């Protein structure tokens, strides 16, 4: 069951990466950044998988996942949102979070080997705020990256809590800790489905139309 969802998640992620990369050259900058985000996630997932096989421990890679996701999505939203205020908030947020994390890890390097609650919380929470900005902007404008935005909000709402309790679950017995991780994997697969749907709705047709023209 869990394995099925893990594989489904991976397969969808890979499919999304391929589909988004296909139209890469003809698209806007926002689209390119999002494709970059998928690429970063693919890299982290491959690294995670390899580390798991080689060392049976890949927890430290979660930091790359959170920070990579935060940087890429911050850039994505800073290009996507309208208005100077929102762009400024996103830029300042990015700088502040990265600098505080650098300070935290230099002061307490041992945090690197477990889930860093502050890191999980601040990166997810800021992305949720940015996604809300985008929803707010879309109230009276054209819907751009609408389903991706929905997916981001849903996934982050769910997964943030699961990651926050991550340090506790590492102490659970394997049987119980798997339950929370299966939940996370299911959420992840749903998130990827949203991204896939966005591609189908917004970008799959662009090529055909161009051929017709």
């Amino acid at each position, binding site marked *: 069951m869990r394995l099925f969802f893990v594989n489904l998640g991976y397969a969808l992620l890979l499919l999304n990466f391929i589909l988004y990369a296909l139209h890469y050259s003809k698209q806007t900058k926002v689209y390119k950044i999002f494709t970059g985000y998928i690429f970063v996630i693919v890299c982290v997932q491959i690294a995670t998988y390899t580390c798991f096989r080689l060392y049976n421990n890949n927890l430290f890679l979660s930091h790359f996942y959170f920070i990579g996701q935060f940087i890429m999505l911050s850039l994505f939203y800073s290009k996507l949102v309208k208005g100077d205020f929102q762009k400024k908030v996103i830029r300042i947020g990015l700088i502040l979070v990265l600098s505080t994390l650098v300070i935290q890890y230099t002061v307490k390097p041992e945090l690197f080997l477990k889930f860093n*609650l*502050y890191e*999980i*919380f601040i990166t*997810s*929470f800021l992305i*949720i*705020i940015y996604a*809300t900005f985008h*929803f*707010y902007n879309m*109230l*009276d404008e054209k819907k751009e990256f609408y389903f991706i935005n929905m997916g981001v909000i849903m996934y982050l*709402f769910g997964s*943030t*809590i699961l990651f*926050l*309790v991550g*340090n*506790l679950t590492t*102490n*659970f*017995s*394997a049987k119980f800790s798997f339950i929370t991780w299966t939940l996370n994997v299911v959420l992840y697969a749903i998130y990827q489905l949203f991204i896939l749907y966005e591609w189908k709705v917004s970008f799959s047709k662009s090529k055909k139309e161009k051929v017709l023209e």
Partner: protein
Amino acid sequence: MILKPIPEGEIVATVIFSCVSFLLMGLVLVLFFYYSRKKITQKELEKRDLEIQYQKEQLHAVIITQEEERKRIAQDLHDDISSKLNVVSLNCYLLNSPNLTEKETAEITDNIINLTAKALDNSRKIAHNLLPPVFEKFGLHAGVEELCEEFESSKAVKVQYTNEINFDKKDIDRHLHVFRILQELMNNSLRHGKATEIRIYFKDINGIATCNYEDNGIGFDDTKVADYKGLGMKNIDSRVSFLNGTIKISSQIDHGIAVSFTF
């Protein structure tokens, strides 16, 4: 398998972070709702302002048209009737004067009869222009037919008129608007468009009465239609909105104009 005991500090930290994150996410939700409402209300206000602005413009156009029409009627009365009646009254005074020969009396009476006839004829024409009696008596179809005949007989233009609708006489008030729109369009075609051919076609499309109007005049660039919206066009717009209909105007320079409106 022996479980490692979970340090209490870890649990407390987790609980605090979870609690704070839920709280803050709730706060984000509330703020989102608050600002969205504000934005939507503002948009609605803007929309209403626009509507009011539009209505004001329409009212303005109606008032100006009314004044223009009054001026025109005043001018018609003054030029065609008052002037003639003046001469008649002068002639009547002349009749009163003593020592008139029979021939002079006959001449003056002839004059009076002629002028009164002309004044009568003119007053009939003015009344006819204001509201054609044929339209009032026989409805829109006959009214438009007569309008077409008038245009054909008096000016260098060919009018082709086709009607597929049986107009109900109960709707004559609405039909008067249609008649006025056509009058305005035809006047425009002649005056501004220099058209030599006009086609009018009444058609029933899925139960909605539609009028198609075309001419072969000089036309205009319909991408800049806002620049061309003179008083007449505004008048047509407000008449169509009275009729709860829609209007579509398309035109190209040197390719005439095509207007289609529903009523």
